[in-house]
């Protein structure tokens, strides 16, 4: 079970949270203007790297707020958590563990 450091509430056990998938996925501003490839890329293609992964979590059974985290998917160790709107701290997502 993961111990997750909510930026608002501090460290709490994983069952208090809901995983929200890859972070920083931007929806195309005008969907009608993008190609089928670009739309499929937005809808379905995710990073899925073995290494540092930027992802969203929601502290559902706590403050209820979304936040972002950097986690190493080869060890499940959290490297950082940060608030929505903030840039990811280093190491950059996608880099090796």
């Amino acid at each position, binding site marked *: *079970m*993961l111990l997750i450091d909510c930026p608002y509430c501090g460290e709490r056990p*994983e*069952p208090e*949270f*809901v*995983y929200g*998938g890859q972070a920083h996925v931007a929806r195309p501003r005008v969907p009608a203007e993008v190609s*089928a*490839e670009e739309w*499929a*890329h937005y*809808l*379905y*293609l*995710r990073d*899925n*790297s*073995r290494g540092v*992964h930027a*992802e969203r979590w929601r502290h559902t059974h706590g403050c209820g707020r979304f936040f972002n985290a950097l*986690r190493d*998917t*080869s*060890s*499940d160790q959290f490297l950082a958590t940060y608030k929505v709107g903030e840039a990811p701290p280093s190491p950059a997502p996608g880099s090796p563990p």
Partner: protein
Amino acid sequence: MQRFSGLSLLRRGLGGQRGWQPQWRHPDPKPAYDALIIGGGGHGLGTAYYLASEHRLTNVAVLEKGWIGGGNTGRNTTIIRSNYLFPESAALYDHAVKLWEGLSQVLNYNVMFSQRGVLMLAHTVHDVQVAKRHVHANRAAGVDNEWLTPPEARAFCPLLNIGDIRYPVRGAALQRRGGTARHDAVAWGYARAADALGVDIIENCEVTGIRRNTVGAVEAVETTRGTIRAPRVGVAAAGHTSVILKMADVELPLESYPLQALVSEPVKPVFPCVVMSNTIHAYISQSDKGELVIGAGTDAYTSYTQRGGPHITSHALEAICELFPMFRRMRMLRCWGGIVDVTPDRSPIIGKTGVPGLYVNCGWGTGGFKATPGSAHVFAWTIARDEPHPLNAPFTLERFRDGNLIDEAAAAAVAH
């Protein structure tokens, strides 16, 4: 290859079990092959076997970073069924069930395929409607599936508690042709049969790069045991497919999650079938060794660690204890995790990748073992002829761009 028969077992038994040869060779990789398969699980080994046996492509190697069958082939709960909702899926999985039915004879290796029946429980009004829809769709597609009332379900599986529980059993769908097989034997049987046809099985050989030529086609694979040239490369690497295909700059709509399973201490035969509950998320059968084999759901987050949280397995055990109160005092012996590659529609991707000579068989998610022979059979066809078999033609990578999803995720409403 030494063929197994009653006579050969008797003769070597009387001779003190001397004279048995290794089941497959351990060759060093050659500098070049006609085709390479990355991933020495059931799907990869089966693909090499069908390339050699049906397409006369015998200059083939299977590259495995660990030992064969040490990934998801050796980590799953061995359930086999084909009662999927959509005609494309039912056809593909039923192709596999038909191959399972003759596999021990074809491979001359006992894969212990046991058609003991798979009972899928319904606990809510919605479950009942969905299950009946599956039953009707399957029967229309020529796949056996039948609806059982709660007393009929208990008659089929006498240990089942259909009464006084939080989610009472309101009925069940039964596929009698479904069942289990011995997972290790599937890997070993395919390895032995492929080796006998000339396929090199190269263990402890991790792929570190995929080299492409000036027109972008696959040229060679870099490994921890040197560079191996091949004009055709098939990837069957399950949870690590994204990592491998990134080496050829191919992105896939996959996410890799931990999936956990556990077994109990071995006991005498008590459990006659396979029981699955998607709603309260538990899967159970009894192995021939006597262990209860129990499957849990995936963890919430993507990971490559091959382990997951204990709250996931305890959730599955709570469901098992409700459904089968006599197991409340059983002790669990081992638990483990495997990494499964999940697609957005929970259907596999089997076909070309956009890179000439590079083929992929992935996205089986939480239920790839049941498809092993069918998946390997159509993937070998795809690699040998550079075009999909009619059964895997709908399972392209392009379906996500074109909106032709085969949405078993929505059909089952959970991972399956």
